[in-house]
């Protein structure tokens, strides 16, 4: 929980970036709150449950050509049983007149990390969470404020984001075999007799509102 709070502070500290950069028009920052809706189910059951999860994201980008911005994306997604911190790249494109509402298209893609999840170890086994590559295209509108250089945004999109729960049984009780990141991990790492990996591909319809400045 403490980690989560710090991360949220981190995300919202981006609010001040445009102030620090004297509100350059060639850069934009977007902060969003959202809901991720979908149906979840367990591995061995056909029963499903609606889920509605909380999501926060921040984007800071630079104009690469008129109405197109490319930048960094950070987020926080609170799924059932796992909290993911997406870190990746984002694109924003705008269509419309200089004044008034505009259409907005966007894409966030990167890797959902699990820094907030703890590894658990017992004498017999170790358990941990892993994230995966996420992909989040969306469409929306921007509604400029009457005063000031900012706008409200609202968007709807699809978010595809995997997360895995791993449980490894130790070859020897009481040992603490090394947990490798997935990109260097052999099929069955040394020190484990078995490794059970349950991967959930969260597929969500996203609805987000935010501010753009």
């Amino acid at each position, binding site marked *: 929980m403490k980690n989560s709070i710090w991360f949220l502070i981190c995300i919202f500290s981006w609010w001040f970036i445009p102030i620090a950069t004297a509100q350059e028009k060639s850069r934009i920052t977007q902060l969003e709150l959202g809901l991720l*809706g*979908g149906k979840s189910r367990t591995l061995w059951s056909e029963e499903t449950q*609606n889920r509605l999860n909380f999501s926060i994201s921040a984007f800071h980008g630079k104009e690469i050509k008129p109405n197109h911005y490319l930048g960094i994306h950070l987020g926080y997604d609170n799924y059932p049983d796992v909290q993911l911190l997406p870190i990746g790249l984002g694109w924003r494109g705008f269509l419309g007149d200089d004044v008034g509402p505009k259409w907005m298209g966007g894409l966030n893609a990167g890797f959902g990390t699990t820094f907030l999840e703890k590894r658990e170890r017992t004498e017999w086994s170790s358990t941990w969470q892993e994230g995966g590559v996420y992909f989040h295209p969306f469409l929306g509108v921007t509604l400029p404020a009457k005063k000031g250089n900012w706008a409200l945004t609202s968007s709807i999109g699809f978010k595809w984001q995997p997360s895995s729960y791993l449980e490894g049984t130790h070859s020897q009780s009481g040992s603490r075999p090394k947990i490798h990141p997935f990109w260097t991990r052999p*099929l069955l790492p040394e020190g484990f*007799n*078995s490794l059970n990996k349950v*991967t*959930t591909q969260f597929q969500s*319809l996203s609805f987000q509102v935010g501010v753009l400045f």
Partner: protein
Amino acid sequence: MKLLHLNTALLLLASTLLFSCMDEVTSTYTFRTMMPVYLEMKDVRAKSLAPIPAQEIENPGKIYIYKDFLLINEPSKGIHIFDNKNPANPINLSFIPIEGNVDLAINSDILYADNYVDLLAFDISNIRSIRLVNRIEDVFTHLYQHSTGKIITFKDTVLTSDSPRWEYNDMWTVRPGMSLLANMAKASQSYGTGGSMARFTLMDGHLFAVDQSTLRVFDVLSPAEPKFIKPIELGWGIETIFPFNQKLFIGSNRGMHIYDASKPQDPKRIAVYEHVLACDPVVVNEDFAFVTLRSGNFCVNGVNELQVIDIRDPYQPKLTKAYPMLNPHGLGLAENYLYVAEGKHGLKSFNASDVLSIDKNQLEFIQSMKSVDLIPGPNSLIVIGPDGVCQYDYSNPAKLKKLSCIQVAEPIEVS
């Protein structure tokens, strides 16, 4: 009114859309297992057994010392041959590829090695020109699967399935620790002259070989022409064999069998010393047998101790004293000094001249030397550990001095 309907319709549409995406859940279960492998002996026998250039040791098995040579078995693959004139610098000479090989013994320049169900005899009088001189077929018949006439053996394999069961492609596999062959390989991670975990041993012109339940006797009076004499049923759980003074001391996981081998062609059981279920290599001197009991694999009793058994009357072996240990595996006896491989805990040396106070006479405990078995050889104490085969100068048992270590590619796991 129309606006209200529109809003309601939009809300319904939004909520339908919001929960229309279904998460996908998948599971993979990756596990280490012993996969059954079926072989035709005619195919095995057709393969070349000529030595090939030196190979890196992947996973050391039985060890044998002969003259200035050190032979290291690679379980189920063959035998590495080292020139060990200088224990501080053993030189890897060659490798004999023998499928299904677990045990070896040498008698008058003839190397005996098992090749699944067959016993092979190699002439090693010229170590640089080793040649097969004899093959005794179909003697280790326990490896045959009678329904198919094929050999069944097991291969350590990592498999992935979508369910956490010991089943793969409609075929049940075996958990590694529960596999009989795995246990055999585990128990035989080191053998040799004086080795406490040997399954092949030589005495009075005869070769004795034990598997999980049977003692097989071979006449090797004519070394290059071994003759299979007979099998002797011992009961289940046989692990090691140690010869001493025309007797065979056979360690099983329920006790120690003593056989009178004064007529080596026809050994007779004279006593069984029973203990709790445990893995138990044995070494012996004139008066006492030293047995280590440890927990692990099938031996799940939690007992870890060194037992000293009075065998002055071999018909009535009696426990003299038991000493708690950490997780003792193999052991070796050189004169009055006892060396115990304590698994992942290290290597211990004791002065065992007073068998009633061995614990008070611990000379050294090298915790950095994880070990599974050892052989007090003529020039060095050879210790097998998870990281390799190491040799120590043990002229001072209280101060073992490391001479060399042969590194292995796949270190064995020590429980």
